[in-house]
Every structure is written in C-alpha cells, then in structure tokens.
C-alpha cells in the first residue's frame, strides 16, 4: 500500500510540477509587472512597414493599470497597428488571469529562457494564446508572441537595461503581419514620377516592425485616467 501511494505521489509530482513551475514563474512575472501601477516614458518610435513612410519620432508613452496604454506624439501623428497595446507587456499581462502551460526551454542569444504558454481564462478575451519566453532568474520576459481573435498574431521582442528591476524594457521590437493589408485605390490622380519611384522599392517580407527605444521612464507618479480617452 505504502509503495502504491509513493508511486502515485511521484506520478503526480512528475505531471504537476512543470505546470506549477510555469504558474509560479508567471506569478513572478506578474508580480514584477504589477509593481508598476503607472508609468510615462519618453521614447523614439520607429515604424518600418513596406507601404508606410513614417519618420522616426519622439513620443510619450503612457501606461496605467490594468491595461490603459497610449502612445502620443506631441503636435504630431503616431501610427501603430491595431492591438498595439500589446507593445506593452504590462497591458498584456497585468490584472488578467491565465492558465500557464509549460513549453520547455529554449536558448536565445545564449540566454536560457523558459517557454510559457498562456491561455486566458476570460471567455471574451481578444487574446487567444500568448507565448512568453521568460528568464527564470530575473522573471523578465524577453519575447512574447500573441495570437488575437481580431488582429492576427503579434510578436514583441524586449531588451532590458536600466529599468529591468521594474520589468520595463529599454527597447521593444514589435513585429506584425502586413501581408493581408491593402490600401484602397486612390480616387485622385497620382503622379507617375512617384509611382515609378515606388515601383523600384522592395516589397518586404509581409511583416511590419515598430520599435520603441525608451530614453526614460517616470514610474508610479500617478496618471489621470482622462489621459487615455
């Protein structure tokens, strides 16, 4: 009897431990991210989309718990893909409930990262699946791939530095699919010279890239909800 109970206990541990570890790791990540109630950041926004010509610009980035996120270019226009809130890991994870499923380990740039697949518990969540690559020691997410119902699949690659203790990256590279996007045929006359110049441009790989390089953060200083309207 004793042997049987030891056998089942070991069996339970064998199957439950990785899931438990994944949940613990997710909790560690959430704890770190949820320590940031709000932030405003100064950043440089770079947009690299084959059918867009947007100059790099200085932007202000605002986040407030649980998922209020906004990028503003003072006196200018900023353009982000729909679901751009996923640029912010805080917006993606903070205050939301997930089932964490372990996915093993991988190595990125010589860094051993745990793979966690997150299944949202909310039925009406736009996010279907999120895969995180997390460094266990620091509980920092280095890569997040999110599949949504409405806006396709997004990939966020983070690089950390000065603000890693808050789980806030110095750089985010956001990759999204642009191959399905079509601009409507213009109704006005278009200049042939511009058309000929554009015809020589490479068409790209069907992916759009948005980079945010943060120069500074102001954390937990309080932000009015009206800022996000």
């Amino acid at each position: 009897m004793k042997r049987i109970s030891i056998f089942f206990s070991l069996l339970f541990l064998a199957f439950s431990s990785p899931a438990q570890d994944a949940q613990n790791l997710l909790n560690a990540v959430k704890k770190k991210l949820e320590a940031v109630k709000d932030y405003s950041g100064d950043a440089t926004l770079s947009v690299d989309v084959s059918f867009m010509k947007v100059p790099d610009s200085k932007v202000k980035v605002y986040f407030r718990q649980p998922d209020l996120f906004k990028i503003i270019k003072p006196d200018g226009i900023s353009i982000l893909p729909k679901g751009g809130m996923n640029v912010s890991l805080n917006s993606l994870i903070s205050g939301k409930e997930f089932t964490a499923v372990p996915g093993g380990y991988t190595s990125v740039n010589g860094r051993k990262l745990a793979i966690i697949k997150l299944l949202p518990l909310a039925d009406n969540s736009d996010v279907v699946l999120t895969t995180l690559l997390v460094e266990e020691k620091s509980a920092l997410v280095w890569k997040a791939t999110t599949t949504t119902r409405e806006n396709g699949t997004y990939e966020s690659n983070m690089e950390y530095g000065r603000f890693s203790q808050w789980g806030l990256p110095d750089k985010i590279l956001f990759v999204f699919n642009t191959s399905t996007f079509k601009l409507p045929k213009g109704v006005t006359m278009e200049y042939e010279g511009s058309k000929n110049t554009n015809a020589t441009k490479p068409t790209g790989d069907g992916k759009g890239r948005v980079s945010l390089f943060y120069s500074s953060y102001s954390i937990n200083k309080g932000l009015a909800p009206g800022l996000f309207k």
Partner: protein
Amino acid sequence: MWPLLQIELFKIFKRSRTYISFAAIGAIVALILLAFYADGNNYMAFGMQSLTQSFDIQGKVLNGYLICFIILQTLLIHVPLLIALVAGDQVAGEANMGTLRLLITKPVSRTRLLLAKFIASTLYTILLLLWMALLALVVSVWIFGTGDLMILKSTEVVILENTDVLWRYFAAFGFAAIAMTTVAALAFFLSVFAENSIGPIVTTMSVIIVFTILSTMDIPIFNTIKPFLFTTHMIGWKGFFDAPVSWSPVLQSAGILLLHIAGFLVATIWVFRKKDILS
C-alpha cells in the same frame, strides 16, 4: 518692354471678368474650409476607414497642412479653366473687339507685343496662384493650425513631420506656377488662330480634359502615351510630398513643362508674325 507690359496688365486687370477667377477660388476655398470646420472629423474618419481598420492613429490628422493639400488636389484640376479665360483672350479678344489691327500699326514689333501679352498672362497666373496659396495655406493654417501631414496614396501612406512640410508647399506652388503657365501658353497659342476668345478657351479646356482622362485611366494602351502628355507632368507638384522627394522625375516633369511653354510661345510668335491680320 515695361510700358508695353504695363498696358497689357492694365487691360487684364481693368476687365471685371478677370476678378471672377479670384472670386471663384475664394468661394471654393471658403466652402471647403467651412465644410472641414463643421464636419471635418467625420470626413476624415470616412476617408481613413481602410487604414483605421488595421491601425490606431493618434494625433491631429486634420490640420491646416492637410486641408491645403486637399484644396490643391481639388483646385489644380479646375484652375486651368480660369487661366484659359484670360490667356485665351489675349490675342483673340483684341481681334474680336477689332483693336488688333490698330494695335500692330503701332511702332512695336509683333514679337515684343506678344511677349508683353504672354508675360502679362503669366503674371496673372502667378497672382492667381498666390491668391490660392494665401487662402489654401495661410488661412487653413490660421484656422486649423499646423501638424504632421499624412497623405494617403494608393500604394503607400506618407507622414511628413510638421517642420518638414512648409518648404514643400513653397516648392509645390512654384511647380504649380510652371504647370499653369503651360496652360496659359497653350491658350495663348490657340488665341492667335481665333477671332473671338470662346474658341481658344473651349479648345484649351477640351485638350486638358481629354489629356487628363488619358493620364488618369490606368489602361496599358494609354500608359505608353502618358509620358508624352503634358497633363501627366502637371501634377508633378505631388512629387514634393514624397519621402524622400522624387527629385529626378519632378525635375524632369518641370523641364518638360518648360519645354512646352517655350514651344507654345515660339509657335505663337512664328504664326503671329506670318499672320495676315484682317480684324
């Protein structure tokens, strides 16, 4: 030359119909500005529908620079008619009034007379464009303020930074002056053949309408002739709103238009010098 030019300018600006063009442009720009002031945001939401389905756009898209671009896009198609009204009347109008024969009895060469008339038409054209620039750019910016300029094309979206826009408008209006002077030169050339100004005005507009249709239709058989139509090059001002500016095609278009102006002017002088003036 200066006294001749003064006389021609006096004749142009003495006629009340000259001011119809200024009034028409003023009325159209005022209506467009009023429409944008009252319901611009809905118009923008509708115009950017395809883009906002996939992208979040933050910031003041509707600003004076964008409205000026929309006005230029709308008006520069129609301004040739207003130019032709004056340029097409330069010689034919004199013939119609019976003053042309009297005019060439004066001790002034026909070439100098025509040059004075053409320069006067060109100055009228430039004044009309300055009036348009004042209303479309200065008043729009005064009412709606400045900001980044977002242009939606059929192949791309271009966003130009606030500080990088104004010089493009100066360049665009400069280019538009060359384009509209081409129209003036064509109307002026046709004016030599007619005894009243209706003929050259209607013919100029007919040529522009037909050429514009050929330039607009994206049909392979027409694509081969497009580079040879001056109307294809008349919208070269839009090249200044590319990022970076398509300098080579824009300069090429400006060169082609200048060649047209020179060609029409030389042809006008050649025909007029040989013409037996009976009216």
